[in-house]
């Protein structure tokens, strides 16, 4: 039942969004929340049911480990093959995309945590947005986002996935710009949208490559073709396609060159940051790469690019996060950094480990953001952690849950983050020691900045103004209990995937096995080799725990007693480094300079022409000149042609007969003047005629 009606899952939030679009303005707040949260809760329940049914279905003999696919109709192209094209080897294929849904272990995981975390965040938003204007608008957007994200996750082909991909981009844009009257918010929204366009272009091109090369867009067909052994490892076209797809993933998941939009996206309301920019949407890139694992396995060079970009992003973002002061920005850079981790895992071939990290990360990062939202709520809108402090006793629930999340992200043993992160580090070690080293340093930094956040916020001395301090209060129930639920999962989610070395059986990886059946085996060493490496693995584990502990220790030393005039240790040690980090390596300014051609940075005049202006000049003069020239020639010929048409064709051939007809029809027209009185006159005359006839007949 649930499985066959899986298409209902995305449609439910779409229904909510539609209702909000048409009637939201007129509805009470309570009915808005009832509708919007209700549909998401329903979607979550249906998702649980669908996954449960799928596990039963796929363990039957005839469907063993098969993905469940249901196709409603074809929305692009036709079944009859009207839109055909030749693939690279000349065989005809029809361009066709279905409105079809695919449920396999990979999408099951995404489905569950998207609906689950989404549901919690919806509940949280009731409290958080309770006093804001545009309540129905917010929930309408959230529902629209849920619809797009579920479409993305459940799509059975690249084209439909792209629809969801663009949908979440749109929702992200709308929600970042939710406070559109603030210029910074609308700028941030534009930035997110434009930067994502670059990635989307890559995705689109990659998709076309795939269509051209494999003759189909369906994941099932593509995967089957890739695994058929028909293509050599390192096939250049597949490499190109995967690299292009990865560009798309970079955009959506905020990887190194294209990460700049995510920190700015924190302008949106906090629940949005939690849902879209921490837990779900930004992992879409990971999902897409994992979904295309069969292709990536055929392109080791792409895999390497993915791993390197991931590792660099991880350490890069973590280093920026060390010194940021805005509570949400710290978490944003942390998100970028953790996403880097996931790509590192994908790049080294540990798809399951990457997905596992996505899974655990969704819980504790959502928790962190929601906790941050609760803190901001308590601080009457203050976001700067330098102005907080000593909140632990005042907002105990928030503090406790956030502390659990911090422990989890820092990799303290026993919590979710430890298991997933450790798995990634171990896989990275096996791939390349340098990558492991980067990951290790990142882990150290992660622990440091997370505990810095905790100490500055919840411990140390209070640094806020008096009225703010007076105002501090715990958030309402609808906000705190999602925190508690998420905290529970932050602790326990890791136990789904305890690696064998810790005595677990890694259910998670087993569950995902059918999806990553090909490539994973090649990288994931057989159990035989595993035994020898156990020692190293334990060593690494201890090291990373030590790194986490060291980060914690350093943070507590540096910030444990921070009062109003505290100094950053990095600033004290090396001011230039601090400034560089605080200004995020001047990346935004660099982009501004190169791409938009802004000549000035503050008061500094930069002088030369930027890339953007250069291309604009090229466009205006060379390209447009060519276009205009072509246009001029066209116009000349058109003038000649129209003269011919007007005087010769129309004049003699068309108007002539018309004039003739008009002249001939004039007597008939006398009876149709459009004047009522004329009709009456004719009527009278007719009456006279008839009566005369009947009387004197």
């Amino acid at each position, binding site marked *: 039942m649930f499985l066959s009606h899986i298409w209902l899952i995305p449609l439910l939030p779409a229904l909510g969004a539609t209702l909000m679009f048409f009637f939201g303005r007129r509805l009470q707040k309570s009915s808005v929340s009832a509708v919007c949260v209700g549909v998401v809760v329903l979607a979550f329940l249906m998702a649980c049911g669908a996954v449960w049914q799928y596990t039963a279905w796929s363990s039957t003999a005839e469907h063993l480990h098969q993905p469940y696919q249901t196709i409603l109709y074809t929305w692009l192209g036709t079944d009859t093959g009207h839109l055909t094209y030749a693939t690279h080897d000349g065989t005809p294929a029809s361009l066709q995309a279905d409105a079809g849904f695919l449920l396999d272990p990979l999408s099951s995981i995404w489905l569950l945590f998207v609906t689950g975390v989404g549901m919690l965040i919806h509940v949280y938003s009731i409290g958080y947005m309770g006093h804001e204007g545009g309540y129905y608008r917010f929930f309408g957007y959230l529902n629209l986002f849920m619809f797009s994200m579920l479409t993305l996750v459940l799509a059975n082909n690249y084209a439909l996935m792209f629809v969801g991909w663009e949908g979440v981009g749109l929702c992200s844009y709308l929600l970042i710009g939710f406070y559109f009257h603030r210029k910074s918010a609308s700028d941030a929204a534009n930035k997110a949208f434009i930067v994502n366009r670059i990635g989307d272009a890559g995705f689109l091109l990659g998709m076309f490559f795939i269509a051209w090369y494999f003759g189909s867009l369906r994941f099932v067909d593509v995967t089957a073709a890739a695994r058929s052994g028909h293509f050599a490892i390192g096939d250049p076209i597949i490499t190109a396609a995967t690299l292009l797809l990865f560009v798309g993933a970079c955009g959506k998941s905020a990887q190194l060159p294209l990460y700049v939009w995510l920190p700015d996206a924190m302008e949106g309301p906090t629940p949005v940051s939690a849902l879209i920019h921490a837990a779900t949407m930004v992992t879409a890139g990971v999902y897409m790469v994992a979904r295309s694992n069969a292709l990536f396995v055929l392109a080791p060079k792409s895999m390497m690019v993915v791993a390197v970009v991931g590792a660099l992003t991880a350490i890069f973002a973590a280093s920026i996060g060390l010194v940021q002061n805005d509570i949400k920005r710290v978490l944003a850079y942390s998100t970028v950094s953790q996403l880097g981790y996931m790509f590192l895992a994908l790049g080294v071939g540990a798809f399951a480990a990457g997905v596992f990290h996505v899974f655990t990360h969704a819980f504790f990062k959502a928790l962190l953001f929601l906790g941050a939202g609760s803190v901001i709520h308590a601080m009457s809108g203050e976001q700067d952690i330098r102005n907080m402090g000593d909140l632990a006793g005042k907002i105990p629930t928030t503090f406790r849950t956030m502390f659990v999340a911090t422990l989890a992200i820092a990799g303290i043993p026993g919590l979710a983050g430890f298991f997933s992160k450790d798995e990634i580090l171990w896989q990275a070690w096996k791939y390349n020691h340098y990558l492991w080293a980067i990951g290790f340093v990142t882990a150290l930094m992660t622990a440091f900045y997370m505990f810095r956040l905790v100490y500055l916020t919840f411990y140390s001395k209070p640094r806020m103004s008096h009225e703010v301090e007076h105002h501090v209060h715990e958030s309402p129930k609808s906000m705190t209990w999602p925190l508690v639920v998420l905290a529970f999962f932050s602790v326990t989610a890791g136990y789904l995937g305890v690696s064998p070395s810790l005595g677990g059986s890694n259910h998670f990886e087993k569950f995902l096995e059918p999806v990553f059946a090909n490539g994973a085996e090649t990288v994931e060493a057989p159990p035989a080799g595993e035994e020898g490496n156990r020692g190293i693995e334990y060593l690494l584990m201890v090291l990373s725990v030590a790194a986490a502990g060291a980060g914690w220790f350093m943070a507590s030393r540096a910030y444990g007693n921070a009062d109003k005039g505290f100094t950053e240790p990095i600033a004290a040690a090396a001011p230039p480094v601090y400034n560089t980090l605080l200004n995020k390596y001047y990346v935004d300014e660099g982009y501004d300079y190169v791409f938009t051609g802004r000549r000035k940075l503050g008061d500094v005049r930069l002088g030369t022409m930027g890339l953007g202006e250069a291309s604009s000049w090229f466009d205006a003069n060379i390209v447009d000149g060519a276009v205009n020239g072509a246009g001029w020639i066209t116009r000349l010929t058109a003038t000649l042609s129209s003269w011919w048409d007007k005087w010769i064709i129309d004049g003699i051939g068309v108007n002539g007969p018309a004039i003739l007809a008009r002249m001939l029809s004039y007597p008939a027209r006398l009876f149709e003047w459009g*004047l009522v*009185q*004329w009709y009456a*006159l004719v009527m*009278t*005359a007719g*009456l*006279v005629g008839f*009566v*005369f006839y009947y*009387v004197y007949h």
Partner: protein
Amino acid sequence: MAPVATPFFFYLLSGTMLIGGILVITRKNAVHSALALIVTLLAQAAIYLMLYAPFVAGVQIILYAGGIMVLFLFVIMLVSIERTMKERQFNKQWLVGIAAAGALGGLFMAVYTKGKGIFPEHALPTAEAQNTQAVGSLLYGQYMFAFEIASLLLLVAIIGAVVMAKKRI
């Protein structure tokens, strides 16, 4: 009461009616036309009385003179008529129209001359006291259905008039 001086009143009233009718179609000012029409209608009500139809006469006064003509006057006052009064009053086909009407009149004359003998010269006087009751029982008896249809027509007319004339509904 027996009718008194019937020919005198008949010619007086019919003269009033015809003069009123001529004024209706010749006045420039629509208000004057309406007043002339009211005079015509009242004279006609009197003629109904002469024809032993007092109920129809009462209805004529209440509905026509008191209702419909007030409506006309209202509308004339709503639409400004200063401009119209300075313009040509008759349309381009007036000559043809009068000719057609004349032809119709000739026809009527011919018909009535030809059928002169059909109608008796005197009609029997009947008691007028029962007129209202008789009309009532016809209306609510034999013509019940037509009466209902007429009320439905009025309802439709009300709605139509409101829809037509209202600026925003």
